[in-house]
């Protein structure tokens, strides 16, 4: 088996990974990026992005940001992580701007910066190319080498020639995306199918601590096209209205903040309107001017170009035909909820030498692109402090393949989670009984050996590992803490408890501790 050595092995050439590579070079260590697809257009920023949220504007303090994310997380947010992260965002955005990113220097909400970010990923790739020692593309990281409580490297399956190689490193940074494709989707997914929760699965299998996995992310989106509404709702102050013309965020959710309530509530409220029959739900764009309309479409072209095709094919004129809003299926995403790999302030996980950043890492409920950039930088600085030789001898490893179709396993997983673990069809509600049915079925699927295209088999195994940990968390939190992200019919009263649930998988079962915030 081929062994490649580096100071820092970065799993995932996305926002956090490319930035970590930049900072690693600056700190004088060699980094290798291992990427499943192609860095130039991989992950959730493939189409671009129109705002860098979690940006510290002049006149705002890190403490203000912490209060803001705590509000967004309905009280649950890690202060140490929020403060250390937000301080680095102007530095990170400055690097992108120096590499050609058009930054508009206009606010998008309180902690957002508008950008023309269609090319953010090619620009991040340029940064990675000039800083990384090596970038290995079309390569799937499928297992970490952990002995005692320390990581020594990562086993990688080469999708080009089906060989396995080992990247030996003093530090390994998990900088993958979150998990899409767990639940059955009703339309084009919010988050890319490429993001299979691989980083979470690597950490779970390695026995690293995981936090907040009961908080799934369910974004309210433009119905069918599944494009963001934040730019319209927040940027242009367009209110949500139901079929009866009622601005229900104002009339029913004032105590949570009305139109600017935390995102969970902005997903919960429209889902109730659907359940109770007052659909369609619209985002009222009638008062948007012609000039604003052009700007709005351009912002979408930078982030979700299908929107432009959608408004033409559906004949949507912002003045007359309003955009419909509907929350979509659940995801696990560390940049939108506290779900993710548990980390210390220096972005080290509970396993020595193993770091996590961006969507892979948990603890901050609103991290987005700015937070991912910042965490990549912090993680690289921590990696540069790790000294000593790595004399680890990797064993011969090969992923297990079998004869059960990955497609059949994936379809069953998505169906079961939708029906028993609070998917779209159940209006996001679950209970102990239903979640246990889902858990049993996921464990049955995990016992199968899957067949088919290697990348699809590996992705399905990772999704199943993520689904299992998510269900264990959902069962363990015996309350309703954040509807609809975590909402139970057997404990329907809204709780304001102040703990984040942290789990560890020992290869057989999950054990839990509580982290008070």
């Amino acid at each position, binding site marked *: 088996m081929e062994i490649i050595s580096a100071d820092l092995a970065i799993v995932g050439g996305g926002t956090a990974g490319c930035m970590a590579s930049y900072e690693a070079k600056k700190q004088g260590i060699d980094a290798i990026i291992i990427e*499943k*697809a*192609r860095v*130039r*257009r*991989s*992950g959730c920023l*493939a*189409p*671009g992005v129109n705002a860098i949220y979690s940006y510290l504007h002049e006149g705002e303090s890190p403490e203000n940001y912490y209060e803001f994310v705590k509000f967004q997380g309905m009280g649950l947010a890690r202060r140490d992580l929020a403060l250390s992260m937000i301080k680095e965002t102007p530095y990170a955005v400055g690097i992108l*701007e120096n590499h*050609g*990113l*058009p930054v508009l220097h206009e606010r998008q909400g309180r902690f957002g910066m508008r950008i*023309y970010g*269609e*090319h953010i990923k090619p*620009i991040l790739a340029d940064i990675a190319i000039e800083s990384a020692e090596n970038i290995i593309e079309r390569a799937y990281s499928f297992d970490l080498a952990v002995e005692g409580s320390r990581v020594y490297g990562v086993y990688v399956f080469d*999708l080009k020639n089906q060989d396995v190689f080992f990247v030996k490193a003093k530090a390994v940074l998990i900088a993958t995306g979150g998990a899409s494709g767990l639940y059955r989707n009703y*339309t*084009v*997914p919010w988050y*890319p*199918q*490429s993001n299979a929760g691989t980083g979470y699965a690597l950490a779970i299998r390695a026995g690293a601590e995981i936090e907040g996995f009961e908080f799934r992310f369910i974004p309210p989106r433009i119905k*069918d*096209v599944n494009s963001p509404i934040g730019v319209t709702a927040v940027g242009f102050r367009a209110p949500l209205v139901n079929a009866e013309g009622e601005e229900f965020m104002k009339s029913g959710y004032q105590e949570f903040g009305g139109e600017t309530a935390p995102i969970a509530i902005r997903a919960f409220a429209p889902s109730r309107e659907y359940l109770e029959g007052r659909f369609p739900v619209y985002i009222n764009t009638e008062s948007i001017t012609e000039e604003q309309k052009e700007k709005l*479409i*351009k912002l979408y*072209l*930078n982030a979700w*170009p*299908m929107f*432009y*095709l*959608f408004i*033409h*094919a*559906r004949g949507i004129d912002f003045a007359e035909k309003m955009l419909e809003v509907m929350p979509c299926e659940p995801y696990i995403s560390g940049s939108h909820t506290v779900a993710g790999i548990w980390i210390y302030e220096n972005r080290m996980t509970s396993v020595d030498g193993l770091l996590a950043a961006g969507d892979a890492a948990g603890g901050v409920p609103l991290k987005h692109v700015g937070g991912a950039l910042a965490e990549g930088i912090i993680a690289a600085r921590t990696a540069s402090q790790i000294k000593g030789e790595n004399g680890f001898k990797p064993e011969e490893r090969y992923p297990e393949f079998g004869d059960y179709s990955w497609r059949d396993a994936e379809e069953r997983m998505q169906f079961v989670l939708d029906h028993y673990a609070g998917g779209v069809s159940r209006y996001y509600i679950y209970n102990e009984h239903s979640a246990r049915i889902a858990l049993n079925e996921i464990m049955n699927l995990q016992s199968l050996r899957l067949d088919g295209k290697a*990348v*699809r088999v590996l992705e399905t195994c990772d999704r199943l590992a993520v689904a299992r940990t998510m269900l264990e968390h959902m069962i363990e939190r015996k309350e309703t803490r954040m509807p609809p992200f975590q909402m139970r019919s057997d404990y329907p009263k809204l709780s304001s408890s102040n703990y984040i649930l942290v789990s560890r998988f020992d290869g057989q079962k999950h054990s839990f501790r509580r982290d008070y915030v």
Partner: protein
Amino acid sequence: MIVFDYDLCIKCGKCEKICPCLAIEMIDFPKLAYPDKCWHCCACIKECPSNAIKLRLPPHIGDQRYEMLVLDRQNTMVFQIFFSGRMIDEMSIQVRK
């Protein structure tokens, strides 16, 4: 859904290499081998040197006669909307300083 124009395709394989979701496979010609894995992100359309790929909405979302093409013009991206093969709208954005 992406659609290929095989009269224009030069079989360079750039679409297969760029697809973030590894949904495209080259077997003589490129093919959307895993339609459920297509995110509609347009990465392949922007990468295609012969403008041979266009985007359509998934059929449950809307009218299949509408298509979108994206042209990568260095520091500008040009988005064009077609109806039954005829261009009906165009917008461009600056993507690099």
